[in-house]
């Protein structure tokens, strides 16, 4: 019982060191901006193994989070653009009707019970609707590429204009303070070509014409939210069919493929461990008040300092006897 130890979760550094495939990020010497930059995940330990607390950076209370962009963001860009920019509508029974768009094959309960606004009283899907599905993700190496996924040294720096230590204030200028600049290093993304299959379903060809015209006009432009991400989207052809089965309803369908030039920055432990995320420039040195017994020092004392005060209160000074 005496030898039993309580299990302790490993730190990120311990995980990193025991994983042989994961190498610490060591910037090349002489590289601009990276000569003394170290991986903040290593608790400030530099390439020479010396712990430097100046390199301790944290994302705590930082509004800018480590950057990641996944397939979901690419998918959301399409919905956003359809709903907020293209806004396809049709005339139905003399009323302008908004065309809903949703990702294909959702869960049954969700589509029947929760998202039932495009269904009628009995649960049948009311037209027009647009559905889309991502069918393939193809790597695009013609734009750029990382050298090695284990060493994503290819990063881009984004400087934050203002932060808590560098506020937008003339006080800093009047006091000749050098602003503290924070930068975020973002790894080179994986450029991919995403292919989506769209199906537009309407009651009438006349309604379909209007939607196809709107989609075709929006083709070759950048789809997505301006405040977030935008991706180039291209549509090459549309195939329209009119389905009329014996004991069924007449349905007008148009299917087309949309190619989206997207990119991915995954939120993986691999990227987290081996890439720089945040760094700051050295801007200020703060010295606390120190007092000595006499100036100049004539006495040779092994420790001329009396004490170190941090609250700057002279009444609290105690002379060393």
């Amino acid at each position, binding site marked *: 019982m005496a030898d039993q130890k309580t299990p302790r979760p490993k730190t990120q550094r311990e995980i990193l060191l025991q994983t042989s495939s994961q190498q610490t990020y060591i910037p090349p010497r002489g590289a601009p901006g990276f000569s003394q930059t170290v991986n903040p995940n290593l608790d400030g330990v530099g390439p020479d193994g010396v712990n430097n607390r100046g390199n301790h950076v944290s994302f705590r209370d930082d509004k800018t989070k480590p950057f990641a962009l996944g397939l979901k963001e690419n998918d959301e860009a399409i919905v956003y653009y359809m709903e907020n920019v293209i806004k396809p509508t049709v005339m139905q029974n003399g009323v302008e009707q908004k065309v809903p768009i949703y990702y294909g094959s959702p869960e049954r309960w969700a589509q029947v019970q929760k998202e039932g606004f495009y269904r009628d009283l009995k649960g*049948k899907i009311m037209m027009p609707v647009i559905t889309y599905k991502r069918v393939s993700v193809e790597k695009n190496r013609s734009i750029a590429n990382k050298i090695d996924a284990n060493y994503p040294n290819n990063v881009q720096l984004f400087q934050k204009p203002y932060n808590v230590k560098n506020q937008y204030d003339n006080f800093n200028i009047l006091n000749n303070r050098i602003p503290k600049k924070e930068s975020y290093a973002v790894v080179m993304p994986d450029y991919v070509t995403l292919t989506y299959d769209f199906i537009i379903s309407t009651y009438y060809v006349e309604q379909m014409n209007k939607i196809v015209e709107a989609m075709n006009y929006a083709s070759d432009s950048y789809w997505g939210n301006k405040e977030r991400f935008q991706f180039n989207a291209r549509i090459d052809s549309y195939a329209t069919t009119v389905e009329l089965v014996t004991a069924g309803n007449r349905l007008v369908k148009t299917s087309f493929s949309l190619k989206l030039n997207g990119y991915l920055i995954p939120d993986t432990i691999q990227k987290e461990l081996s890439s720089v995320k945040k760094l700051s420039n050295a801007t200020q040195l703060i010295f606390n008040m120190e007092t000595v017994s006499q100036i100049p020092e004539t006495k040779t004392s092994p420790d001329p300092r009396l004490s170190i005060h941090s609250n700057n209160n002279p009444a609290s000074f105690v002379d060393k006897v």
Partner: protein
Amino acid sequence: MALFGTQRDVSLFRHMSRELMSDIITEQCAYYKYKLEETKINLYGEAAGEKFYMGPVLLNTLVERTDNVYPETDLGTDYDKEIQFSFLRDDLLGAGKEFNKFDNKGNSYTGLPGTGYGADLVPDVGDIIMYNEGYYEVHGVVANQYFVGKNPDYPNNVNTINKPNGPGDLSAYGSSISIICKAHYVQADKLGLTQARYV
């Protein structure tokens, strides 16, 4: 010359059927027909703008329901249902004819003088039937149940024995009993009869 299936026999069956359908089974549906002159179609043969209907006409019917089906389509889980509506042919046709006039003896819905059976309605493919808050589009009409195998509309009198207005006149024998409409479910908002969308 035919021996059975005279109009007297047909009248017996008509009365029994009407009593069965209107007083005992009492299943009803509403029948809509398109106003062809007012409902305009476009180049693609579709009335994308507005549709105009005659009716609805409330009819006694025998309903043969099938189970609801929920097929998985490209759009997701859909809904479908097929229903067969069977009507007594004399309830639909023959308006104003003697056998459809009310006798003011209780053999009617209202018993009002001057009213009678016969909706003057010819069911056809594409008509709409409302039943249990659902709309059904007719995709098939069947009228081939003949009493004693004879349809009086086609007597085919060729010989002297069966000559018209004679005792063997075949137009006085047999009857076309029913009209069966096979229909499938259709979205209410497509028809524009009731408000189905609220967003």
